[in-house]
């Protein structure tokens, strides 16, 4: 069972949501399932928390929400906007920068 780790999770849900929605539009439950699947359950969110993130990103103009009726159920589908793509590129760059910095520290000789 994956465990949540808030200190390491800052900004991660936003990055994951933007990356997954860049592939195709999805609704909340589908998105959470995608996160669990893609990260092999390494990242586990309180699933309700995805909605504040989605609403916030929509309000910031990074996502667009659209209601759709599929198999008799109305779902709110989210898709990425042009602003969202820019935000994704920015976050991706930040993430790689931090990741390489941390990797450099971890792989440096301990007594060096």
């Amino acid at each position, binding site marked *: 069972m994956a465990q949540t780790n808030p200190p390491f999770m800052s900004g991660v849900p936003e990055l994951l949501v933007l990356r997954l929605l860049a592939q195709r539009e999805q*609704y909340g439950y589908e998105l959470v399932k995608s996160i669990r699947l893609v990260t092999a359950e390494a990242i586990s969110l*309180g*699933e309700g*928390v995805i*909605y*504040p*993130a989605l609403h916030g990103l929509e309000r910031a103009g990074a996502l667009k*929400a659209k209601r759709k009726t599929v198999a008799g*159920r109305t779902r*709110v589908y989210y898709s990425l906007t042009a602003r969202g793509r820019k935000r994704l590129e920015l976050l991706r760059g930040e993430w790689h920068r931090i990741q390489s910095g941390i990797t450099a520290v971890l792989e440096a000789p301990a007594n060096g």
Partner: protein
Amino acid sequence: MGDQTFDDLRRSLLESGVAPRHVRRLILELRDHCDDLRHEALAAGCDPAAATARAMRRIGDQQVLAGKILGIAELRTWAYRYPRLARVCYPIAYVLLLPAAPVFAGMARASILARWGAALLLSATVTAAMFLGMQLSIALG
């Protein structure tokens, strides 16, 4: 399922100034998500009570959820974001809209007003006809 919990969440978000359209959609999405989780648990062999409990557990703590929502200032109504401006604008808007209140009230109850007008017209016609009859009976002696 979890209706009381979501009602409490809805109420607390509205009381904290989150815009009603965001609250409505959030609750709708959470209910749907919960239903999906419940169906997933039932398909995995849980009994209905355990499935509901598991779904609610996976949705997560309602207070954490409320805290996350309240942390996004843009989801609040403008009156909560700019209280000083609201204290100026609301009284001005009320003063400007006050004279138009009867018009808006009439528009909102157009069918009632139409029925009332028709009844008034009918009673005026009947009264006029009675007066005319009386006048004619006097004139024709």
